[in-house]
Every structure is written in structure tokens, then in C-alpha cells.
């Protein structure tokens, strides 16, 4: 192993953390822009090194493309593990392989563009420094997640991402909604963490190890039942992190965070972690058909579910949030059926166009002084040409219009679904594609056309180069990103081949099913036409539809009442129990169990303080009493011993 390959991964990993630390400790003395520069440089450095690493790795023969870097490094005299708790040995190890590299490229690359964008977007924030420190931290934790060489470090990254997202979603601490959203995200993510933890326990029980290498090498030694359970618990983690059914409710609320944060969460980090986890654990899912099927069904259901909700929402960021949920559903579906390369490909293109959509939406929101409701927009195409053109590029990409990126990646998934014989899943996925086209173009019309501007305040055309540049770059990427897979040429599958070498069913995407592709393209056009008809041509038809479909619309507006159901299912009983407990157990109780517990603890603390009377004679007495107790016990032991001896 050359020296580059051992040191570079650690540098990539720790540059963002270094950025966080420097910003937190050094920057207070400097101008606020210093924080932004440091944060950007840290991520950019990470990105450059990742590119170098990727170029190096992909030039190696396939067998050498995956390697593990351990810490402490090899030259340290002692065995390369971080902790040895017999029989479990845990190393701090990084695993670099094509799959991890794809994620690292996106996390650092798109992450960098979003950092760049934030310079302008957050310019008026009071806590500029803190923001960039958190952003770097977010990227760091995500890198830990994707670069981890064993499941334990994956869990560390997994939890870290949850924590960082908590900090960023609740960044505007003076807005209660943001704080509540952050808390919700954290709680639902912790449920997922528990799932992963359970999976880890099971893995440890069955394989005696948590390292990818050992677990995957011995995967067949565990029975299918065990593997299914491991798969299900891992899925719980993935579901929570990727906002899939039924733990999806935090994602729309997370829109309370600043727009760059939304972009980071949706495009580069966090929600795609679930896809990564399942792709990473593919040896387990390959041998756990039931778990894999569950994954596919969850993904498909979420894709459809979120797409339907997206059709009626008015908040521009919420629509994008539901679209993310839906697109992640596609990816989960793909990896669930075993089309790992297709899922990864869609992740890449999605990162481009989703980050782009958020940036464009962010420019709109920024220029409208924080307005997010599309009913108060309209006719903005002329006023904000840049925002419009970039948003349009993103929309064309996400809806799968040729030759934009989404066309290739979404088609690849649909194509693979048919090839792998999942017609029902294919049907719903295709239906989702139609809905996607509808709600995305609906959003475009509502925001940028549909008559004149409806807002109260005149939009100001503040424009910042650092906001425009990444948007334009991403628009280009959204166009060309899909060309990685062209008829007869499939760069993605061949790049990932060494990771999925153990799969015989890894299908190339190069072989286009042209009727299918054109059919989906046609569906996208149908969606476009429907949106055009309802929102541009015939608003009166829209009114008629709205009245006839009132119950359906209410259902969708409220996101299938998931929040309400959860409220009644979990929160209300919990509060009832807690308050009853407070009423009966703790007469002065205010907030129930926790207060009671806290109070008991404090009481005990006071008791301990009462022991410290300050009188040294009392202390002496306490000692003498201790002497009596110990003597009594010991003489009892001696008596027992004598009795034993006598017997």
C-alpha cells in the first residue's frame, strides 16, 4: 500500500473536523468572513483529496480497489485496534472502496458547493461563525458514516449526523417551530439509531465481529432468519435517517432550518445515508430475501406516498422535501431489489439536481425576504431569470426529461425493476414518475408563472456571486451528470463493479430499453401538460377538481394525517400516563415522570449533603458505625467459614 493511500483518507476525514475546531477556537479574534473562508477551504481541500484518491483508486485493478486503513497506523508497535474488549476487537478503521468513494465525492463536492452558497445566503445571520462550524461538523460526521470500516464507527457517524442535523435544523433558536422541528428530527433519528444498535448486537452475537470484512465474509454462517432480523433492524435505522415510511414525519418539518441546511440534508448528507447503509450491507440483504423485499416495498410505498402529498402542498420547500422523500424512495426501492448500481447512480444525479432546486428556491426565498408560500409568489420568471433558469434545469432533471440527468438514472431504476421481475413495483414507480412530473411543473408554474406576482412586498433583487456560481455549476451538472450512463457505455456499474463483485445479478444499465424510456418520457410530458393545463390554462378546472376531490385533498394536505395519528398514538398516551403518574405518585408533580425522577435524585443528593454536617465528631461516628457494619459482616463470614470447615 502506498503512503498516499493510507494518509489521504484520514486527511479527507479530519479536514472538516479541523475546520470546525479552528472556527470555534481561533476565529473569534478575526472577521466573521474568516470563518466562512476556513469552512470552505476545509471542505474544498477534502474534495480535492477525494478526487485525487478516487482517480488513484479507479486506476487500480478491481481486486485492489477496496482497502482498509487502520488507526493506529501500521508503524505503531501495537496491534492495530482501538479497543480490545475480549472477544470483541474494535479498530478505528476506514474502508475505502468505489461505493464509499462515490458517496465521499458527493458529500465533499456538493457539500462544498453548498458551503459556497451559504456565504451569501447566511450573510445576514448573527451566528455566522457557529453556522459554518456546524456545517463542517455535519460534513465530518457524514464522512465518518460513509468511510467507516466497521459497523461501530458507522453507528458513531450515524449518531453524529443526527446530532449535527439537530444543531442545524434548530439553528434559529429564537423560532420555536425550528426548535420543535429539530427535536422531532432528533427523536425519530434516535429511534433509527436504536434499530442499528440492535442490528449490531445481533451481528456481534452471530459473527463475533462488527467489521465489514469479517461480517460479510461469514455472512452465510448465520441462518436466513438471523440475517432477516439484522436486515430489518438495519432497515429501521435507514428508514429513520432517510425519512421513509413510517418515520418520515421529521423531514418536512426540518425545512425550518436555513435553506443551505436543507440542501445539505437532502442532497449530500443525512437522508441518503439509508441508501448507503443498505448498499453497504448488501451481502446481508442478498442472503435475506425477506428483509430485502421489505426494503423494496418501503421504498416504493414512500416514493408514491410522498409524490401524492407533493401534488397539493404550497410551501415551496415542503414540496421539495416531499420530492426528496419520493426520490429517496426510488433509491431505496432500487437497492432493495438488488439494483445497487442504479440506486447509486440515482443518488449521484439526485444530489446534483436536488441541491440545485434548493439553491434556486433559496434564491427566490432570499429575494422575497423569507417568503416560502407559493401562493404569494407567481410571475417571478422575468424578475429572477437566474433563479428561474436554474430551477427549471433542476425540474427538467428531476422529472426525467431527456437529456437531463434524471432521465438516465430514473430510467435505469425502472428498467432494472422490470429486468429483475418486479412488475408491481415497476407499475407504482412509473406512476410516481408521472406524479413527480406533475407536482414539479406545478411548482414551477405556481412560482414563476401563473399570472402576476401575488406577494405583498416587492422582491428585491439582491444577488450574490457566491450564490449564483454554485447554482449555475449544479445546473450544468444536472444536465451532464446523467451522461455517465449512455447506451452502450455504463461508467457507474463498471466503477462500482469491484464493490458488488460478489453479485452475479448486477445488471449493466448500458443496455437501454428504448420503448420503456420513451414511455416514461411520455409520462413526464403528460405530467407537464396536466400541470400546464391546471395552473396556466384553465384555473377554473382546478377549482372544480378541488371541490370534487375535497376529502382526498384534505388527506394529502395533512400528509395522510401521520402527525395527527402519531400524536394520538404516542404523545397523548405518554402524556396521560406521565401526568397521572405525576398526580398520584408525586403530588406536586408538574410534568410527570421525568420531573419526579429528577426530584427524587435531587432529594437523594440532599440526603447525601445532610450527611456532611460539618461536625467532625459526626464524621467520626459515621466511621465507627461503618466499622461496626464491616466487622459484623466479616465475623459472619468467618462464622460461616468455620461452619463450613467443621462440616
Amino acid at each position, binding site marked *: 500500500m502506498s503512503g498516499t493511500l493510507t494518509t489521504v483518507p484520514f486527511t479527507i476525514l479530519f479536514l472538516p473536523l479541523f475546520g470546525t475546531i479552528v472556527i470555534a477556537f481561533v476565529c473569534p479574534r478575526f472577521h466573521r468572513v474568516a470563518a466562512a473562508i476556513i469552512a470552505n477551504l476545509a471542505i474544498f481541500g477534502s474534495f480535492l483529496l477525494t478526487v485525487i484518491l478516487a482517480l488513484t483508486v479507479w486506476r487500480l485493478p478491481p481486486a485492489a480497489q477496496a482497502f482498509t486503513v487502520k488507526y493506529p497506523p501500521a508503524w505503531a508497535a*501495537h496491534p492495530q*485496534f482501538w479497543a480490545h474488549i475480549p472477544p470483541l476487537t474494535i479498530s478505528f478503521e476506514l474502508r475505502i472502496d468505489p461505493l464509499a468513494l462515490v458517496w465521499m465525492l458527493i458529500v465533499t463536492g456538493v457539500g462544498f458547493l453548498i458551503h459556497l452558497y451559504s456565504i451569501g445566503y447566511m450573510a445576514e445571520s448573527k451566528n455566522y461563525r457557529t453556522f459554518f462550524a456546524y456545517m463542517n461538523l455535519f460534513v465530518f460526521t457524514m464522512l465518518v458514516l460513509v468511510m467507516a470500516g466497521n459497523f461501530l464507527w458507522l453507528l458513531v457517524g450515524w449518531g453524529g449526523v443526527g446530532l449535527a442535523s439537530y444543531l442545524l435544523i434548530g439553528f434559529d433558536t429564537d423560532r420555536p417551530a425550528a426548535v420543535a422541528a429539530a427535536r422531532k428530527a432528533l427523536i425519530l433519528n434516535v429511534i433509527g439509531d436504536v434499530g442499528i444498535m440492535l442490528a449490531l448486537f445481533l451481528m456481534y452475537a452471530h459473527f463475533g465481529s462488527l467489521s465489514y470484512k469479517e461480517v460479510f465474509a461469514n455472512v452465510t454462517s448465520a441462518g436466513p432468519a438471523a440475517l432477516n432480523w439484522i436486515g430489518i433492524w438495519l432497515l429501521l435505522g435507514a428508514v429513520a435517517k432517510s425519512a421513509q415510511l413510517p418515520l418520515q414525519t421529521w423531514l418536512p418539518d426540518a425545512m425550518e432550518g436555513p435553506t443551505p441546511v436543507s440542501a445539505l440534508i437532502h442532497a449530500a448528507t443525512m437522508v441518503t445515508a439509508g441508501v448507503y447503509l443498505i448498499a453497504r450491507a448488501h451481502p446481508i440483504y442478498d442472503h435475506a430475501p425477506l428483509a430485502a423485499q421489505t426494503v423494496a416495498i418501503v421504498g416504493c410505498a414512500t416514493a408514491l406516498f410522498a409524490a401524492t402529498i407533493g401534488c397539493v402542498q404550497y410551501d415551496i420547500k415542503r414540496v421539495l422535501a416531499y420530492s426528496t422523500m419520493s426520490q429517496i424512495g426510488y433509491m431505496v426501492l432500487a437497492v432493495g431489489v438488488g439494483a445497487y448500481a442504479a440506486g447509486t447512480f440515482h443518488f449521484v444525479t439526485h444530489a446534483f439536481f436536488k441541491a440545485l432546486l434548493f439553491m434556486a428556491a433559496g434564491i427566490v426565498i432570499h429575494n422575497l425576504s423569507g417568503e416560502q408560500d407559493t401562493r404569494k409568489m407567481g410571475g417571478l420568471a422575468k424578475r429572477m431569470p437566474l433563479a428561474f433558469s436554474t430551477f427549471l434545469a433542476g425540474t427538467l432533471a428531476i422529472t426525467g426529461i431527456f437529456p437531463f440527468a434524471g432521465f438516465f438514472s430514473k430510467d435505469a431504476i425502472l428498467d432494472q425493476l422490470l429486468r429483475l421481475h418486479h412488475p408491481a413495483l415497476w407499475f407504482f414507480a412509473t406512476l410516481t414518475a408521472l406524479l413527480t412530473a406533475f407536482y414539479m411543473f406545478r411548482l414551477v408554474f405556481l412560482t414563476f408563472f401563473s399570472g402576476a406576482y401575488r406577494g405583498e412586498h416587492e422582491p428585491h433583487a439582491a444577488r450574490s456571486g457566491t450564490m449564483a456560481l454554485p447554482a449555475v455549476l449544479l445546473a450544468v451538472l444536472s444536465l451532464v451528470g446523467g451522461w455517465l450512463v449512455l447506451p452502450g457505455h455504463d461508467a457507474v456499474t463498471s466503477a462500482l463493479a469491484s464493490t458488488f463483485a460478489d453479485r452475479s445479478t448486477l445488471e449493466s444499465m448500458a443496455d437501454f430499453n428504448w420503448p420503456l424510456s420513451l414511455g416514461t418520457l411520455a409520462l413526464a410530458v403528460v405530467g407537464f401538460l396536466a400541470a400546464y393545463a391546471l395552473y396556466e390554462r384553465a384555473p377554473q378546472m382546478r377549482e372544480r377538481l378541488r371541490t370534487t376531490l375535497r376529502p382526498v385533498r384534505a388527506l394529502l394536505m395533512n400528509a395522510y394525517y401521520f402527525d395527527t395519528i402519531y400524536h394520538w398514538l404516542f404523545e397523548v398516551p405518554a402524556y396521560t400516563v406521565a401526568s397521572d403518574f405525576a398526580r398520584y405518585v408525586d403530588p406536586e408533580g408538574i410534568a410527570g415522570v421525568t420531573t419526579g425522577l429528577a426530584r427524587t435524585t435531587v432529594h437523594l443528593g440532599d440526603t447525601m449533603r445532610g450527611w*456532611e454536617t460539618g461536625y467532625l465528631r459526626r464524621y467520626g461516628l459515621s466511621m465507627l458505625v461503618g466499622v461496626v457494619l464491616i466487622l459484623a459482616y466479616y465475623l459472619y463470614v468467618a462464622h460461616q467459614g468455620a461452619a463450613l470447615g467443621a462440616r
Partner: protein
Amino acid sequence: MTIAPVAISWTALAPMVVLACGGLVVMLVDLLSRSASRAVLYGIGVVSCIAAFAAMLPLYGRSIVTLNGAFAADRFSWTFDALLLFTLALTFLLSSLRKADDGGSPGSYAALLIFCTIGGMVMAGANNLIAVFLGIEQLSLALYVLAGTGFPRESSQEAALKYVLLGSLASGFLIFGSALLYGADGSMALAALAKAAASLSPLFVAGFALFLVGLGFKLALAPFHTWAPDIYEGSPLAVTAFMAVGVKVATFAVLARVVYAAFGHDSPALVALWAIAILSMLVGNFGAIRQRNLKRLMAFSSIAQAGYIVVALNGVNREGLSAMLFYLAAYAFTTMGAFGVMALLGDGSESYADLDAYRGLFFKRPWPAALMALFFFSLAGIPATAGFYGKILLLQLAFNGTAWGVAMAVTLVLGTLISFYVYGKVVWNMFAAVEGEAPAASGNAIAPWIAVAAGALGTIVFGVLPQTFYASQPFLAAAAK
């Protein structure tokens, strides 16, 4: 009459001799040059620590029993000695800022600290009951005085008085216990205890009980802990730091040597020790909840930590000894570091013993605040700090299949949870927004910075590379015979 010459291994005694010479030099310099500054005197102290450590190097990995079996310089005592010297050096660095009104002649103060540490080293190598008693007394007598060196403050006088009276009471138990232990096996050697322990004769168990009381007092294990909060609060900051670390290190050396010499892994006589450990964990953590004085809080914390460390004796095996050494090292780093931050910020005064002084500290002094947070995280046992791995090792030892082991493990986890609140409160205070005028943070002297940095370095390195150290020779303690 011919007298056979006593075989003396000067190699084994060299560290203590070198340190003692350092103490004498300090006194001489103090005597000859009436104007020798603190910096010079404490500098000599630090230098003699380093010299003593250098004298320890030839002993690395060796095992010498000398002076007719009274004193052992083996791999076990080596690590304890190294920790003691580390603590002493850091104590000197922390002392350098003591305000003039804190009283005490610096020369005598430094000499007492050195002789106190020599007492600790005697304890670490003590191989018979006489040496144990002498080591404990030398350590204690010096500390009684040191506790009072803040005598312009009334609380320091009170601490000295309470400490000397209660300490002598505890020594009474120790002496009587030693007498009974001696009577149980007819020999002063610790190695001879095994035979008496196996028979569990009433004489032996009564003796061991009283002996345990004496050690329990020094370790501040509940229910013999009551002195600790008052005396930690009253003593000068640097002395408190030494008390919290040095005394524990030395006394645990004695406790471990006695337990390992006397008992097998399943002796029922150890159950009282487990009960004491559990009680200490609870008392320490619960007691700390309401404290607003950081030195007091550290006292309760040290009670709990002592309780944790006792867990390492569970099973009386080699791993336990290694785990104990590792945890003690982690404890030494973090505790000395935390006291270092207090000394640094207070500029030698006691003003930063008050929790309120830490409000919003991070926004004024990010580095000390962050390091303080690091130390408290380590005490609480957050991953990637030394304390975390130490606790993992202890937990692993606790689960050895016995009911008491499980009870200790459960208490350990419970205590850790409570301690999150205790330490979290301090950390939270440092990161809380400041309202109104906060006391000015000034201290920036170099000496305590070195101490804090050393503590932080140890905490992080032991946290990031625990296995490297755990698997290294000083920590793989040779099981006592």
C-alpha cells in the same frame, strides 16, 4: 558478635533517594537564600521529579525485592510511582500561582510535598505491614500540614484540624487492624496473608475489616468518606489536587497489593469491598448533584471514582490490575487537568472554585473552557476520552458472573448517568449565555498551562489510543505473588 550486612538494592531505592535529595536541596536553598522565589523552589521540585523519573527508568520491567522483603520495586509499583511523580510535578506547577495571602513558606511547602510523595512511593512498594503503616503515616502527616498551608483562610485551618483528628482516628483503626492481621499469620510480610485468608479465621477477618477501614478513609470510600468534601474545599487548590490524585494512587497500590496477596478470586471476604464500592458510587454521584463549589464537587466525584476503581479488584485477576492502573492514570490526567484549569483561571486564588464563575466562560476564554469540558467529559466517561475506555474496562471486569459483580456494573452505569448531569451542569454553565457582568478572567501564567496541557494530552491520547497504552508494559501489571 558479627552482624550480617543487609542487602540493599540501591537501584530499587534510587527514585526515592533522588527525590529525597531534591527535597533536601529545596530546604537548603530556602534556608541559605532567604529570597529564593517560588519559581526557583518549585522549579527544583519539578526537576527532582524528572530526575527521580530518570532514576526509575533502569527499573522498567524489573522486579526487585530488597531490604529483607520490606520493599518491592516491581512492575506494579513502577506505574504507581510514575503516576505519583507525574502528580507531584503537576502539583508544583499548580502551586506556582498561589497568592501571597495563602500563607506558608514556599520552601517548607515544597519539601513537604516531596516527602509526602516519598511516603506515597513507600506505600506503592510496601511489602510488609510496617512499611505500609510508615508509608501511610508519612503521606498523611505531610498532608495534614499541607491542608493547613492556606491558613489565612479559616476554611483551610478547619480542613487541617478535621483532617488531622479524623486521620489519626483512622490510623488507630489501621494500627489495630495491622496488629490483628499480624496475629493471624505471625508475620509482617504481606505475602504471608494468603494462608490466614484462606482459613478465614475470626482474627484475620476482624483485622482485615479494621485495616480496610483505615485504607477506606484514605481513599474516601463511603461510609468513611465524610471528611473528603470539607477538606478538599478547605485545602489550598494545589494541595486538593494532590490529595485527590496522589493519595488515591498510593492507597490503591496498598489495597491492591494486600487484596492480591491475600485473596483468591472468590473470597467471601471481598464482598464488603463490593458493598463499599457500590455505596461510594451512589454517595459520590448523588452528593455531587447539589454542589456549587467545584472543589467540593470534585471531592464527591473522587468518592465516586474511588468506588469505580474498587470494581477493578473484582475477580482479583491480572486484567483487573491492569484496568486499575489504566483507570488511575486516566483519573490522574483528568483530575489534575481540571484542577489545573481552576488554578489557571483563578490566577492562584480560589475564586474559580465557585461554579458561578464559570458562567459563559467559553465566550471569554474558549481554550480553558473547552479543556475543562474535556476533563469533565472524561470524568463522566464520554467516548474518545481516557475515562471512557477506563469505564469500559471496569464494566467488563464487573461482569464476571457473580451477583455482586452485576450489582456493581448496574451501579456503575447508574452512577455514570447521574454524573452526566453533575458534570454536564458545569459544562452547560460554561457554554451558557452570559447575563450581566461576569468576573474577569485573567489568569494566563505559563506553569499551570503546562499542567493543563499535560493533563489534556494524557486524556486525549489515552482516549484515542487506549489499547496502545493498555497493552504496554507498565499497564500489564505483574500479578502480585
